């Protein structure tokens, strides 16, 4: 029964993809053939059970569908061509932009004795500067020397004036001192009196100092002796206490030893007596 045609016919019939003529023929077969009918019923029941599975509702996730669009002259149908064409055009475009910017901003590249230099300014200025230094260097040195000489001359003039003033002032002071020396007269008596006063003052001061120092030393010595005495007394009393305690302890030990000896003797005597008996 299960030929290829049978399976195909059965599927066509079940799924309604059969012409009306073929349908009638097949239904005739179905009514006559019990096995075929059973097969049909079985597959029909499977379909019924499959109908349990219903479509599930699903939320389409939010997304924006947007392709990066390129200008029309970049759209090449062959992907391989596009891959090559895009980077080349990108590099070319970048170079053009750089050249335009360089032109606008006076971009310059130069190689000279000082090395390679890149810049956005006019290069001529640097050449002018270099020529100026070479031509006018002597003049500049001369100017610098003249300025220096002028400055030194000014300083020397100032110094000369300063020392002249100083010299005049010293001269005046000396002349004044000579005049005053001539006017002042000190006698030997005055000098002896002055020295005698000074000696007396010194003697008195030394005496006062010695007296004060002796008093202080005596006072300190007394205090120290008193403190030493107190210390010795205290130490003596402590030593006596220790000796006393030691003696008491010794006495107690002797007493205990005596008692122990007595006990031993008593036990020996009792033992001897017991042996005798």
């Amino acid at each position, binding site marked *: 029964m299960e030929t*290829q045609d049978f399976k195909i016919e059965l599927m066509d019939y079940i799924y309604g993809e059969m012409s009306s003529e073929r349908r009638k023929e097949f239904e005739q077969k179905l009514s006559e053939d019990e096995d075929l009918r059973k097969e049909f019923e079985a597959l029909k029941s499977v379909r019924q059970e*499959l109908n349990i599975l219903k*479509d599930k509702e699903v939320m389409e996730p939010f997304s924006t*569908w947007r392709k990066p669009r390129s200008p029309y002259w970049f759209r090449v149908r062959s992907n391989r061509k596009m891959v090559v064409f895009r980077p080349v055009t990108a590099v070319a475009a970048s170079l053009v932009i750089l050249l335009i910017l360089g032109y606008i901003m006076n971009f310059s590249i130069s190689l000279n004795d000082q090395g390679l230099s890149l810049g956005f300014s006019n290069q001529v200025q640097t050449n002018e500067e270099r020529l100026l230094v070479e031509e006018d260097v002597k003049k500049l040195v001369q100017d610098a020397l003249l300025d220096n000489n002028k400055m030194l001359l000014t300083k020397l003039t100032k110094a000369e004036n300063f020392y002249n003033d100083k010299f005049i002032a010293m001269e005046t002071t000396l002349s004044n001192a000579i005049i005053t020396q001539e006017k002042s007269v000190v006698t030997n008596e005055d000098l002896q009196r002055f020295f005698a006063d000074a000696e007396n003052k010194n003697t008195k001061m030394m005496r006062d100092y010695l007296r004060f120092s002796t008093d202080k030393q005596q006072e300190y010595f007394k205090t120290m002796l008193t403190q030493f005495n107190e210390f010795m007394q205290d130490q003596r009393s402590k030593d006596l206490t220790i000796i006393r305690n030691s003696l008491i302890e010794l006495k107690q030990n002797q007493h205990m030893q005596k008692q122990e000896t007595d006990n031993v003797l008593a036990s020996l005597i009792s033992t001897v007596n017991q042996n005798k008996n």
Partner: protein
Amino acid sequence: MAEVLENIAIYHSKSLIEKSKKGDEHAYGKLVGLWYKRIYNFSLKYFADHDLAMEVTQLTFIIVYKKIDSLQDVDSFKYWLYKIALNHCREEERRQKRTSWYSIFTSEDAGRVESKIGQPEVEYQKRENEELVAEILRTLPEEQKTVVIMKEFEGMKFREISETLRISENTAKSRLYYGLKALKKLMEKSELHNEIDS
């Protein structure tokens, strides 16, 4: 009903496909809206797993978006779309087998757990049977499963199935026949059959 909706979708699709081919993103968005549910349900029947179905559906529409300008015949969009979806299903299945992936607690499971709380017994039983049938369908051999899903759930004609899978119509019918027979055997072994019989 599914067939009617499908026809409407196809009718609307043509103009949208044309626009999408020209790079109209808005039209492509609408096209996705029309076909998203169909591809999702196709993938869901294939895997019996919501997450995998979602993944395959999204991948399918990304690929379609990238390649739609290379589609020559607008009328063959449907076969082309199912073919891409099926390829992704197969690829995903191979990947799953390689990585021995097991879904311990998928969103479907979560839904099932939720349904147990406070739902009537009938509803619970219905859901259980549904999951059982989905699982039986999933275990069918791949060739038979694809034809069964396309015919039973996607309502495709044998001609359309043969176009999509690039096989003869008779081969499609034969695969469907064996698929249904295998399903019957599997159902007989399962609880489902016993419950239905009792």
